[in-house]
Protein backbone atom coordinates (compact mmCIF):
# COMPACT_ATOMS: atom_id res chain seq x y z
CA UNK A 1 0.00 0.00 0.00
CA UNK A 2 2.64 2.46 1.08
CA UNK A 3 4.71 1.50 -1.94
CA UNK A 4 1.82 2.23 -4.28
CA UNK A 5 1.24 5.60 -2.65
CA UNK A 6 4.94 6.37 -3.13
CA UNK A 7 4.58 5.47 -6.81
CA UNK A 8 1.59 7.80 -7.10
CA UNK A 9 3.58 10.58 -5.46
CA UNK A 10 6.45 10.02 -7.89
CA UNK A 11 3.94 10.28 -10.74
CA UNK A 12 2.78 13.60 -9.32
CA UNK A 13 6.41 14.75 -9.32
CA UNK A 14 6.19 14.77 -13.13
CA UNK A 15 3.20 17.13 -13.16
CA UNK A 16 4.28 20.72 -13.70
CA UNK A 17 2.64 24.03 -13.11
CA UNK A 18 2.95 25.17 -16.75
CA UNK A 19 3.56 28.77 -15.82
CA UNK A 20 6.03 28.24 -12.98
CA UNK A 21 7.70 25.23 -14.61
CA UNK A 22 7.93 23.44 -11.27
CA UNK A 23 6.35 20.15 -10.10
CA UNK A 24 3.08 20.46 -8.20
CA UNK A 25 4.64 18.40 -5.40
CA UNK A 26 7.46 20.90 -4.83
CA UNK A 27 4.97 23.75 -5.01
CA UNK A 28 2.93 22.19 -2.21
CA UNK A 29 -0.12 22.11 -4.46
CA UNK A 30 -0.98 18.54 -3.38
CA UNK A 31 -3.41 18.85 -0.51
CA UNK A 32 -3.88 15.10 -0.04
CA UNK A 33 -2.95 11.88 -1.73
CA UNK A 34 -4.39 8.56 -0.61
CA UNK A 35 -4.65 5.11 -2.14
CA UNK A 36 -7.39 2.70 -1.05
CA UNK A 37 -7.02 -1.05 -0.59
CA UNK A 38 -8.48 -1.72 -4.02
CA UNK A 39 -6.09 0.67 -5.77
CA UNK A 40 -8.23 3.81 -6.07
CA UNK A 41 -5.89 6.81 -5.91
CA UNK A 42 -7.55 9.98 -4.61
CA UNK A 43 -5.58 13.19 -5.10
CA UNK A 44 -6.73 16.66 -4.09
CA UNK A 45 -4.90 19.65 -5.54
CA UNK A 46 -5.00 23.20 -4.20
CA UNK A 47 -3.79 26.52 -5.56
CA UNK A 48 -2.63 29.87 -4.16
CA UNK A 49 -5.84 31.78 -4.94
CA UNK A 50 -9.52 31.22 -5.71
CA UNK A 51 -9.00 32.92 -9.07
CA UNK A 52 -5.90 31.17 -10.39
CA UNK A 53 -6.25 31.04 -14.18
CA UNK A 54 -8.63 28.21 -15.11
CA UNK A 55 -6.59 27.10 -18.11
CA UNK A 56 -3.44 26.48 -16.08
CA UNK A 57 -5.49 24.91 -13.34
CA UNK A 58 -7.14 22.56 -15.80
CA UNK A 59 -3.79 21.49 -17.22
CA UNK A 60 -2.49 20.53 -13.80
CA UNK A 61 -5.57 18.54 -12.84
CA UNK A 62 -5.71 16.78 -16.22
CA UNK A 63 -1.98 16.03 -16.20
CA UNK A 64 -2.21 14.69 -12.66
CA UNK A 65 -5.11 12.48 -13.70
CA UNK A 66 -3.12 11.07 -16.63
CA UNK A 67 0.05 10.56 -14.59
CA UNK A 68 -1.71 8.87 -11.69
CA UNK A 69 -3.90 6.70 -13.93
CA UNK A 70 -0.77 5.36 -15.63
CA UNK A 71 0.78 4.08 -12.38
CA UNK A 72 0.74 0.25 -12.39
CA UNK A 73 -1.53 -0.97 -9.61
CA UNK A 74 -3.80 2.06 -9.67
CA UNK A 75 -7.29 0.86 -10.60
CA UNK A 76 -8.86 4.30 -10.77
CA UNK A 77 -7.69 7.88 -10.34
CA UNK A 78 -9.82 10.55 -8.71
CA UNK A 79 -8.13 13.91 -9.04
CA UNK A 80 -9.94 17.01 -7.89
CA UNK A 81 -9.17 20.68 -7.41
CA UNK A 82 -10.30 22.30 -4.14
CA UNK A 83 -11.45 25.86 -3.38
CA UNK A 84 -11.34 27.26 -6.91
CA UNK A 85 -13.86 29.34 -8.83
CA UNK A 86 -13.97 26.74 -11.61
CA UNK A 87 -13.62 23.61 -9.45
CA UNK A 88 -16.94 22.17 -10.62
CA UNK A 89 -16.13 22.47 -14.34
CA UNK A 90 -12.56 21.29 -14.02
CA UNK A 91 -13.27 18.35 -11.73
CA UNK A 92 -16.26 17.18 -13.74
CA UNK A 93 -14.47 17.66 -17.05
CA UNK A 94 -11.33 15.81 -16.04
CA UNK A 95 -13.31 12.92 -14.56
CA UNK A 96 -15.33 12.66 -17.78
CA UNK A 97 -12.17 13.04 -19.94
CA UNK A 98 -14.02 15.83 -21.69
CA UNK A 99 -11.01 17.95 -22.63
CA UNK A 100 -10.79 21.64 -21.83
CA UNK A 101 -13.39 22.82 -24.33
CA UNK A 102 -15.87 20.13 -23.27
CA UNK A 103 -15.34 20.85 -19.59
CA UNK A 104 -16.44 24.45 -19.97
CA UNK A 105 -19.31 23.84 -22.38
CA UNK A 106 -22.35 25.71 -21.09
CA UNK A 107 -20.45 26.92 -18.06
CA UNK A 108 -21.13 30.27 -16.43
CA UNK A 109 -17.36 30.71 -16.19
CA UNK A 110 -17.02 31.43 -19.86
CA UNK A 111 -16.27 29.63 -23.06
CA UNK A 112 -13.14 27.82 -24.16
CA UNK A 113 -12.60 27.64 -27.89
CA UNK A 114 -9.50 25.48 -28.12
CA UNK A 115 -7.54 22.87 -26.25
CA UNK A 116 -4.48 23.98 -24.37
CA UNK A 117 -1.62 22.50 -26.38
CA UNK A 118 -0.49 25.84 -27.80
CA UNK A 119 -0.65 27.48 -24.39
CA UNK A 120 1.46 24.70 -22.97
CA UNK A 121 3.99 25.18 -25.77
CA UNK A 122 4.09 28.93 -25.14
CA UNK A 123 5.12 28.27 -21.56
CA UNK A 124 7.63 25.65 -22.59
CA UNK A 125 9.20 28.26 -24.88
CA UNK A 126 9.49 30.60 -21.91
CA UNK A 127 10.97 27.81 -19.80
CA UNK A 128 13.49 26.91 -22.51
CA UNK A 129 14.66 30.54 -22.64
CA UNK A 130 14.89 30.83 -18.84
CA UNK A 131 16.82 27.55 -18.84
CA UNK A 132 19.51 29.14 -21.00
CA UNK A 133 20.14 31.67 -18.25
CA UNK A 134 20.25 28.96 -15.59
CA UNK A 135 22.77 26.91 -17.56
CA UNK A 136 24.85 29.82 -18.92
CA UNK A 137 25.03 31.93 -15.76
CA UNK A 138 27.83 29.90 -14.10
CA UNK A 139 29.89 30.26 -17.29
CA UNK A 140 29.29 34.01 -17.38
CA UNK A 141 30.24 34.28 -13.71
CA UNK A 142 33.43 32.35 -14.47
CA UNK A 143 34.35 34.97 -17.05
CA UNK A 144 33.16 33.47 -20.35
CA UNK A 145 32.79 36.18 -23.00
CA UNK A 146 30.39 36.45 -25.96
CA UNK A 147 32.63 34.56 -28.40
CA UNK A 148 33.06 31.64 -26.05
CA UNK A 149 29.35 31.53 -25.16
CA UNK A 150 28.28 31.68 -28.79
CA UNK A 151 30.62 28.76 -29.53
CA UNK A 152 29.53 26.59 -26.60
CA UNK A 153 27.51 23.48 -27.44
CA UNK A 154 25.53 21.36 -25.00
CA UNK A 155 28.13 18.58 -25.13
CA UNK A 156 30.73 21.00 -23.68
CA UNK A 157 28.75 21.43 -20.48
CA UNK A 158 29.08 19.42 -17.28
CA UNK A 159 26.04 17.27 -16.49
CA UNK A 160 23.41 18.97 -14.37
CA UNK A 161 19.71 18.75 -13.62
CA UNK A 162 19.26 22.20 -15.20
CA UNK A 163 20.88 21.01 -18.41
CA UNK A 164 18.67 17.91 -18.55
CA UNK A 165 15.63 20.03 -17.96
CA UNK A 166 16.56 22.48 -20.71
CA UNK A 167 17.26 19.64 -23.15
CA UNK A 168 13.86 18.15 -22.40
CA UNK A 169 12.05 21.48 -22.91
CA UNK A 170 13.83 21.93 -26.21
CA UNK A 171 13.12 18.40 -27.41
CA UNK A 172 9.40 18.88 -26.78
CA UNK A 173 9.53 22.11 -28.80
CA UNK A 174 11.50 20.53 -31.64
CA UNK A 175 14.52 22.74 -30.95
CA UNK A 176 18.13 21.50 -31.17
CA UNK A 177 19.00 19.62 -27.99
CA UNK A 178 21.77 17.14 -28.88
CA UNK A 179 25.39 17.44 -27.79
CA UNK A 180 26.29 19.48 -30.88
CA UNK A 181 23.41 21.96 -30.36
CA UNK A 182 24.43 25.50 -29.36
CA UNK A 183 23.84 26.43 -25.72
CA UNK A 184 22.30 29.75 -26.75
CA UNK A 185 19.54 29.56 -29.33
CA UNK A 186 16.82 31.87 -30.58
CA UNK A 187 13.16 30.90 -30.40
CA UNK A 188 13.43 29.40 -33.90
CA UNK A 189 16.35 27.18 -32.89
CA UNK A 190 19.07 29.11 -34.71
CA UNK A 191 22.30 29.80 -32.86
CA UNK A 192 22.95 33.15 -31.18
CA UNK A 193 25.93 34.96 -32.70
CA UNK A 194 28.57 36.49 -30.45
CA UNK A 195 27.26 39.98 -31.24
CA UNK A 196 23.81 38.94 -30.09
CA UNK A 197 24.98 37.29 -26.88
CA UNK A 198 24.68 40.24 -24.45
CA UNK A 199 21.08 41.10 -25.32
CA UNK A 200 20.11 37.45 -25.55
CA UNK A 201 21.42 36.81 -22.06
CA UNK A 202 19.53 39.85 -20.81
CA UNK A 203 16.33 38.46 -22.27
CA UNK A 204 16.97 35.00 -20.87
CA UNK A 205 17.60 36.41 -17.43
CA UNK A 206 14.48 38.58 -17.56
CA UNK A 207 12.48 35.51 -18.53
CA UNK A 208 13.92 33.59 -15.60
CA UNK A 209 13.20 36.45 -13.19
CA UNK A 210 9.64 36.61 -14.53
CA UNK A 211 9.01 32.92 -13.91
CA UNK A 212 10.72 32.94 -10.52
CA UNK A 213 8.88 36.09 -9.40
CA UNK A 214 5.58 34.39 -10.22
CA UNK A 215 6.74 31.41 -8.21
CA UNK A 216 7.57 33.69 -5.28
CA UNK A 217 4.09 35.25 -5.28
CA UNK A 218 2.39 31.86 -5.64
CA UNK A 219 4.41 30.33 -2.86
CA UNK A 220 3.85 33.30 -0.51
CA UNK A 221 0.12 33.34 -1.19
CA UNK A 222 -0.21 29.59 -0.78
CA UNK A 223 1.43 29.80 2.64
CA UNK A 224 -1.07 32.48 3.69
CA UNK A 225 -4.03 30.57 2.28
CA UNK A 226 -3.04 27.22 3.75
CA UNK A 227 -0.91 27.95 6.81
CA UNK A 228 0.99 25.00 8.20
CA UNK A 229 -0.82 23.83 11.35
CA UNK A 230 0.77 25.18 14.51
CA UNK A 231 2.82 27.86 12.78
Amino acid sequence: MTALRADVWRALDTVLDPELDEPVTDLDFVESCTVSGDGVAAVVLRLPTFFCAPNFSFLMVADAYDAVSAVPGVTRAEVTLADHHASAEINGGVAAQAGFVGSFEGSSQGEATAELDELRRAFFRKAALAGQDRVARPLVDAGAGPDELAGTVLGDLPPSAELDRMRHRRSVLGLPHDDDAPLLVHADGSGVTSGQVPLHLRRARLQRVGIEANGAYCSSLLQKRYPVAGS
Partner: protein
Amino acid sequence: MYEKNGEKYFVVDSHSHFWNAGRENWVPGAEHYAKGWIDCFYGYHQLGPPETHWDYEKFLRPTPEDFERDVFVEGHVDHTVFQSTYLREWYKDGFNTAAQNAALLEKYGDRWIVNGRWDARDGEASWKEFTEDHKRYGFKGVKLYTAEWNGDSRGFKLTDPECYRFLERTQELGIRNIHVHKGPTIWPLDKDAFDVSDVDHAATDFQGLNFIVEHVGLPRIEDFCFMAVQEPNVYAGLSVVVGGLMHARPKMFAKVMGELLFWVGEDKMLFGGDYNIWTPKWQVEGLVDWQMPDDEAFTDYAKLTTATRKKILGLNAARLYDIPVPAELQLAAPEGAMA
Protein backbone atom coordinates in the same frame (compact mmCIF):
# COMPACT_ATOMS: atom_id res chain seq x y z
CA MET B 1 6.01 64.62 1.71
CA TYR B 2 8.54 62.36 3.31
CA GLU B 3 11.82 63.58 4.70
CA LYS B 4 14.77 61.35 5.49
CA ASN B 5 18.39 62.31 6.10
CA GLY B 6 17.77 65.82 4.87
CA GLU B 7 16.23 64.69 1.56
CA LYS B 8 12.61 65.54 0.83
CA TYR B 9 10.45 63.26 -1.29
CA PHE B 10 7.25 64.30 -3.05
CA VAL B 11 4.98 61.26 -2.89
CA VAL B 12 2.26 60.43 -5.40
CA ASP B 13 0.49 57.14 -4.84
CA SER B 14 -0.62 56.29 -8.37
CA HIS B 15 -2.75 53.31 -7.44
CA SER B 16 -5.17 53.47 -4.57
CA HIS B 17 -8.63 52.15 -3.77
CA PHE B 18 -11.44 52.87 -1.40
CA TRP B 19 -13.58 49.78 -1.63
CA ASN B 20 -16.67 48.26 -0.15
CA ALA B 21 -16.36 44.48 0.04
CA GLY B 22 -18.69 44.25 3.04
CA ARG B 23 -21.04 41.25 3.14
CA GLU B 24 -24.11 43.47 2.71
CA ASN B 25 -22.69 44.45 -0.70
CA TRP B 26 -22.30 40.89 -2.04
CA VAL B 27 -24.68 40.03 -4.90
CA PRO B 28 -27.02 37.20 -3.86
CA GLY B 29 -26.00 34.05 -5.70
CA ALA B 30 -22.52 35.41 -6.38
CA GLU B 31 -21.32 35.51 -2.78
CA HIS B 32 -18.58 32.96 -3.40
CA TYR B 33 -17.08 35.16 -6.11
CA ALA B 34 -17.33 38.29 -3.97
CA LYS B 35 -15.73 36.46 -1.07
CA GLY B 36 -13.16 34.75 -3.28
CA TRP B 37 -12.15 38.11 -4.68
CA ILE B 38 -11.59 39.88 -1.38
CA ASP B 39 -10.00 36.77 0.14
CA CYS B 40 -7.50 36.88 -2.69
CA PHE B 41 -6.75 40.52 -1.78
CA TYR B 42 -6.46 39.55 1.87
CA GLY B 43 -3.84 36.98 0.92
CA TYR B 44 -1.79 39.71 -0.74
CA HIS B 45 -2.39 41.96 2.26
CA GLN B 46 -0.64 39.44 4.48
CA LEU B 47 2.55 39.69 2.40
CA GLY B 48 3.20 43.03 4.10
CA PRO B 49 4.96 43.32 7.47
CA PRO B 50 2.94 41.60 10.25
CA GLU B 51 2.54 44.80 12.27
CA THR B 52 0.60 46.32 9.34
CA HIS B 53 -1.95 43.50 9.06
CA TRP B 54 -5.63 44.29 9.54
CA ASP B 55 -8.40 42.16 10.93
CA TYR B 56 -10.35 40.54 8.06
CA GLU B 57 -13.65 42.21 8.96
CA LYS B 58 -12.05 45.64 8.98
CA PHE B 59 -10.29 44.83 5.72
CA LEU B 60 -13.66 44.30 4.01
CA ARG B 61 -14.61 47.93 4.36
CA PRO B 62 -12.26 50.69 5.43
CA THR B 63 -13.75 53.97 6.68
CA PRO B 64 -12.87 57.46 5.43
CA GLU B 65 -11.09 57.95 8.77
CA ASP B 66 -8.92 54.89 8.09
CA PHE B 67 -7.97 56.25 4.72
CA GLU B 68 -7.22 59.72 5.98
CA ARG B 69 -4.96 58.41 8.73
CA ASP B 70 -3.21 55.68 6.75
CA VAL B 71 -2.57 57.67 3.60
CA PHE B 72 -2.38 61.37 4.36
CA VAL B 73 -1.54 61.53 8.07
CA GLU B 74 0.82 58.59 8.53
CA GLY B 75 1.46 57.48 4.94
CA HIS B 76 3.52 60.46 3.69
CA VAL B 77 1.34 60.66 0.56
CA ASP B 78 0.95 64.10 -1.04
CA HIS B 79 -1.44 63.11 -3.81
CA THR B 80 -3.29 59.88 -4.37
CA VAL B 81 -4.88 58.48 -7.51
CA PHE B 82 -7.96 56.31 -7.10
CA GLN B 83 -8.54 53.52 -9.56
CA SER B 84 -12.20 52.73 -9.90
CA THR B 85 -13.09 49.06 -10.29
CA TYR B 86 -16.78 48.23 -10.42
CA LEU B 87 -17.24 44.41 -10.43
CA ARG B 88 -20.99 44.84 -10.29
CA GLU B 89 -21.51 41.18 -11.14
CA TRP B 90 -20.37 40.40 -7.61
CA TYR B 91 -20.81 43.63 -5.60
CA LYS B 92 -24.27 45.22 -5.59
CA ASP B 93 -23.20 48.86 -5.38
CA GLY B 94 -19.89 48.17 -7.08
CA PHE B 95 -16.59 47.24 -5.47
CA ASN B 96 -14.84 50.55 -5.78
CA THR B 97 -16.82 53.05 -7.81
CA ALA B 98 -15.91 56.59 -8.77
CA ALA B 99 -18.63 57.83 -6.40
CA GLN B 100 -17.18 55.84 -3.50
CA ASN B 101 -13.71 56.98 -4.37
CA ALA B 102 -14.88 60.58 -4.31
CA ALA B 103 -15.81 60.27 -0.61
CA LEU B 104 -13.22 62.75 0.58
CA LEU B 105 -12.86 64.72 -2.62
CA GLU B 106 -14.38 67.84 -1.13
CA LYS B 107 -12.09 67.75 1.84
CA TYR B 108 -8.85 67.10 0.00
CA GLY B 109 -9.47 68.74 -3.36
CA ASP B 110 -6.59 68.32 -5.74
CA ARG B 111 -4.67 65.95 -3.47
CA TRP B 112 -7.41 63.44 -4.17
CA ILE B 113 -7.42 62.34 -7.81
CA VAL B 114 -10.25 60.08 -8.96
CA ASN B 115 -9.88 58.08 -12.13
CA GLY B 116 -12.94 57.01 -14.02
CA ARG B 117 -13.73 53.86 -15.86
CA TRP B 118 -15.78 52.83 -18.81
CA ASP B 119 -16.72 49.49 -20.25
CA ALA B 120 -17.12 49.59 -24.00
CA ARG B 121 -19.16 46.37 -23.84
CA ASP B 122 -21.97 48.44 -22.30
CA GLY B 123 -21.93 50.84 -25.25
CA GLU B 124 -23.39 54.33 -24.97
CA ALA B 125 -24.80 53.79 -21.48
CA SER B 126 -21.28 53.37 -20.14
CA TRP B 127 -20.01 56.38 -22.09
CA LYS B 128 -22.84 58.52 -20.76
CA GLU B 129 -22.11 57.50 -17.17
CA PHE B 130 -18.41 58.15 -17.73
CA THR B 131 -18.86 61.62 -19.22
CA GLU B 132 -21.32 62.62 -16.48
CA ASP B 133 -18.80 61.47 -13.88
CA HIS B 134 -16.11 63.34 -15.76
CA LYS B 135 -18.08 66.58 -15.43
CA ARG B 136 -18.37 65.95 -11.70
CA TYR B 137 -14.84 64.76 -10.92
CA GLY B 138 -12.68 66.10 -13.76
CA PHE B 139 -10.94 62.88 -14.70
CA LYS B 140 -7.29 62.88 -15.75
CA GLY B 141 -7.19 59.14 -16.07
CA VAL B 142 -9.13 55.97 -16.64
CA LYS B 143 -8.75 52.55 -15.09
CA LEU B 144 -9.51 49.65 -17.40
CA TYR B 145 -9.95 46.29 -15.82
CA THR B 146 -9.75 44.07 -18.88
CA ALA B 147 -10.73 40.93 -17.00
CA GLU B 148 -13.98 42.30 -15.60
CA TRP B 149 -16.96 40.03 -16.02
CA ASN B 150 -19.93 41.55 -17.76
CA GLY B 151 -22.99 39.48 -18.63
CA ASP B 152 -21.75 36.59 -20.74
CA SER B 153 -18.36 38.19 -21.29
CA ARG B 154 -15.40 37.27 -19.14
CA GLY B 155 -13.16 40.11 -20.24
CA PHE B 156 -12.08 42.28 -23.15
CA LYS B 157 -9.02 43.44 -24.99
CA LEU B 158 -7.95 47.02 -25.65
CA THR B 159 -7.86 46.15 -29.34
CA ASP B 160 -11.56 45.25 -29.50
CA PRO B 161 -13.08 47.69 -32.04
CA GLU B 162 -15.57 49.19 -29.58
CA CYS B 163 -12.81 49.63 -27.04
CA TYR B 164 -10.64 51.43 -29.61
CA ARG B 165 -13.51 53.83 -30.27
CA PHE B 166 -13.75 54.57 -26.54
CA LEU B 167 -10.00 55.16 -26.36
CA GLU B 168 -10.34 57.65 -29.21
CA ARG B 169 -13.14 59.46 -27.43
CA THR B 170 -11.17 59.50 -24.19
CA GLN B 171 -8.24 61.06 -26.01
CA GLU B 172 -10.59 63.64 -27.55
CA LEU B 173 -11.74 64.60 -24.04
CA GLY B 174 -8.14 65.38 -23.16
CA ILE B 175 -7.88 62.53 -20.64
CA ARG B 176 -4.43 61.10 -21.09
CA ASN B 177 -3.70 58.38 -18.57
CA ILE B 178 -4.96 54.86 -19.15
CA HIS B 179 -4.23 52.47 -16.30
CA VAL B 180 -4.56 48.91 -17.51
CA HIS B 181 -4.96 46.00 -15.21
CA LYS B 182 -4.85 42.46 -16.46
CA GLY B 183 -6.74 40.08 -14.28
CA PRO B 184 -7.37 36.52 -13.32
CA THR B 185 -9.73 35.49 -16.08
CA ILE B 186 -10.42 36.62 -19.59
CA TRP B 187 -12.51 35.28 -22.39
CA PRO B 188 -11.88 32.99 -24.08
CA LEU B 189 -10.45 30.90 -21.30
CA ASP B 190 -7.94 29.05 -23.42
CA LYS B 191 -5.87 32.15 -24.18
CA ASP B 192 -3.15 33.40 -21.89
CA ALA B 193 -5.13 35.46 -19.42
CA PHE B 194 -2.38 37.99 -18.89
CA ASP B 195 -1.23 38.61 -22.44
CA VAL B 196 -0.21 42.28 -22.78
CA SER B 197 0.02 42.42 -26.59
CA ASP B 198 -3.20 44.42 -26.83
CA VAL B 199 -1.57 47.19 -24.78
CA ASP B 200 1.33 47.13 -27.23
CA HIS B 201 -1.00 47.75 -30.18
CA ALA B 202 -3.01 50.42 -28.41
CA ALA B 203 0.11 52.26 -27.24
CA THR B 204 1.39 52.40 -30.80
CA ASP B 205 -1.93 53.62 -32.17
CA PHE B 206 -2.68 56.16 -29.43
CA GLN B 207 0.45 58.23 -29.04
CA GLY B 208 -1.49 60.89 -27.16
CA LEU B 209 -2.28 58.50 -24.34
CA ASN B 210 -0.06 57.16 -21.58
CA PHE B 211 -0.55 53.50 -20.76
CA ILE B 212 0.32 52.62 -17.18
CA VAL B 213 0.45 48.85 -16.90
CA GLU B 214 -0.47 48.09 -13.34
CA HIS B 215 1.45 45.47 -11.45
CA VAL B 216 3.96 45.62 -14.34
CA GLY B 217 1.92 43.07 -16.23
CA LEU B 218 2.32 40.44 -13.51
CA PRO B 219 2.61 37.58 -14.06
CA ARG B 220 4.06 38.46 -17.47
CA ILE B 221 6.83 40.81 -16.43
CA GLU B 222 8.99 39.67 -19.34
CA ASP B 223 6.35 40.38 -21.97
CA PHE B 224 5.65 43.72 -20.37
CA CYS B 225 9.34 44.71 -20.33
CA PHE B 226 9.92 43.65 -23.95
CA MET B 227 6.99 45.86 -24.89
CA ALA B 228 7.76 48.84 -22.64
CA VAL B 229 11.28 49.12 -23.99
CA GLN B 230 9.80 49.81 -27.43
CA GLU B 231 6.86 52.01 -26.54
CA PRO B 232 7.68 55.48 -25.18
CA ASN B 233 4.17 55.93 -23.76
CA VAL B 234 4.06 52.72 -21.69
CA TYR B 235 4.76 52.99 -17.97
CA ALA B 236 5.28 50.50 -15.15
CA GLY B 237 2.82 50.72 -12.26
CA LEU B 238 4.67 49.33 -9.25
CA SER B 239 1.69 48.49 -7.10
CA VAL B 240 1.91 44.87 -5.89
CA VAL B 241 5.61 44.81 -6.83
CA VAL B 242 6.52 46.87 -3.76
CA GLY B 243 3.72 45.64 -1.51
CA GLY B 244 3.95 41.98 -2.44
CA LEU B 245 7.71 41.49 -2.64
CA MET B 246 9.68 44.14 -0.77
CA HIS B 247 8.91 42.66 2.63
CA ALA B 248 7.96 39.05 1.79
CA ARG B 249 10.62 38.29 -0.84
CA PRO B 250 13.37 40.90 -0.68
CA LYS B 251 15.79 39.14 -3.05
CA MET B 252 13.13 38.66 -5.67
CA PHE B 253 12.11 42.28 -5.19
CA ALA B 254 15.69 43.30 -5.96
CA LYS B 255 15.76 41.26 -9.15
CA VAL B 256 12.42 42.57 -10.37
CA MET B 257 13.45 46.15 -9.62
CA GLY B 258 16.79 45.56 -11.35
CA GLU B 259 15.06 44.29 -14.47
CA LEU B 260 12.53 47.12 -14.50
CA LEU B 261 15.24 49.75 -14.08
CA PHE B 262 17.16 48.22 -16.98
CA TRP B 263 14.30 47.65 -19.43
CA VAL B 264 11.75 50.29 -18.52
CA GLY B 265 13.95 52.87 -16.83
CA GLU B 266 13.59 55.11 -13.81
CA ASP B 267 11.64 57.78 -15.73
CA LYS B 268 8.76 55.40 -16.44
CA MET B 269 8.22 53.67 -13.12
CA LEU B 270 5.40 54.84 -10.83
CA PHE B 271 4.97 54.05 -7.16
CA GLY B 272 1.57 52.63 -6.25
CA GLY B 273 0.74 51.58 -2.71
CA ASP B 274 -2.49 49.77 -3.59
CA TYR B 275 -4.41 50.89 -0.52
CA ASN B 276 -6.04 49.17 1.28
CA ILE B 277 -4.34 45.95 0.27
CA TRP B 278 -1.36 47.65 1.88
CA THR B 279 -0.83 50.93 3.69
CA PRO B 280 1.64 53.31 2.06
CA LYS B 281 3.76 54.17 5.12
CA TRP B 282 6.00 51.12 5.19
CA GLN B 283 6.25 51.07 1.40
CA VAL B 284 7.36 54.70 1.10
CA GLU B 285 9.81 54.45 3.99
CA GLY B 286 11.07 51.09 2.73
CA LEU B 287 11.66 52.36 -0.81
CA VAL B 288 13.58 55.39 0.41
CA ASP B 289 15.81 53.11 2.50
CA TRP B 290 16.10 50.43 -0.17
CA GLN B 291 19.21 49.81 -2.20
CA MET B 292 20.23 47.09 -4.65
CA PRO B 293 22.08 44.45 -2.57
CA ASP B 294 25.85 44.17 -2.82
CA ASP B 295 25.83 40.37 -3.27
CA GLU B 296 27.40 38.98 -6.39
CA ALA B 297 24.02 37.92 -7.79
CA PHE B 298 23.03 41.58 -8.17
CA THR B 299 26.23 43.12 -9.52
CA ASP B 300 24.74 43.55 -13.02
CA TYR B 301 21.91 45.68 -11.70
CA ALA B 302 22.18 49.44 -11.29
CA LYS B 303 22.28 51.01 -7.85
CA LEU B 304 19.56 53.50 -7.01
CA THR B 305 20.31 57.17 -6.64
CA THR B 306 18.30 59.63 -4.59
CA ALA B 307 17.02 61.05 -7.88
CA THR B 308 15.81 57.58 -8.93
CA ARG B 309 13.82 57.25 -5.73
CA LYS B 310 12.34 60.72 -6.07
CA LYS B 311 11.21 60.04 -9.62
CA ILE B 312 9.64 56.71 -8.78
CA LEU B 313 7.96 57.87 -5.59
CA GLY B 314 6.27 60.88 -7.07
CA LEU B 315 7.90 63.03 -9.72
CA ASN B 316 7.07 60.71 -12.63
CA ALA B 317 3.40 60.50 -11.68
CA ALA B 318 3.29 64.24 -11.02
CA ARG B 319 4.38 64.76 -14.62
CA LEU B 320 1.66 62.47 -16.01
CA TYR B 321 -1.04 64.05 -13.85
CA ASP B 322 0.11 67.69 -14.13
CA ILE B 323 0.53 67.93 -10.38
CA PRO B 324 2.50 71.03 -9.39
CA VAL B 325 5.61 70.07 -7.42
CA PRO B 326 6.96 72.65 -4.94
CA ALA B 327 10.39 73.88 -6.02
CA GLU B 328 12.16 72.42 -3.00
CA LEU B 329 10.85 68.95 -3.87
CA GLN B 330 11.94 68.95 -7.49
CA LEU B 331 15.19 67.49 -8.69
CA ALA B 332 18.14 69.80 -8.80
CA ALA B 333 19.12 70.89 -12.33
CA PRO B 334 19.97 69.53 -14.81
CA GLU B 335 17.66 66.59 -14.11
CA GLY B 336 14.94 68.98 -12.97
CA ALA B 337 15.03 70.68 -16.34
CA MET B 338 14.07 67.42 -17.98
CA ALA B 339 11.13 66.66 -15.70
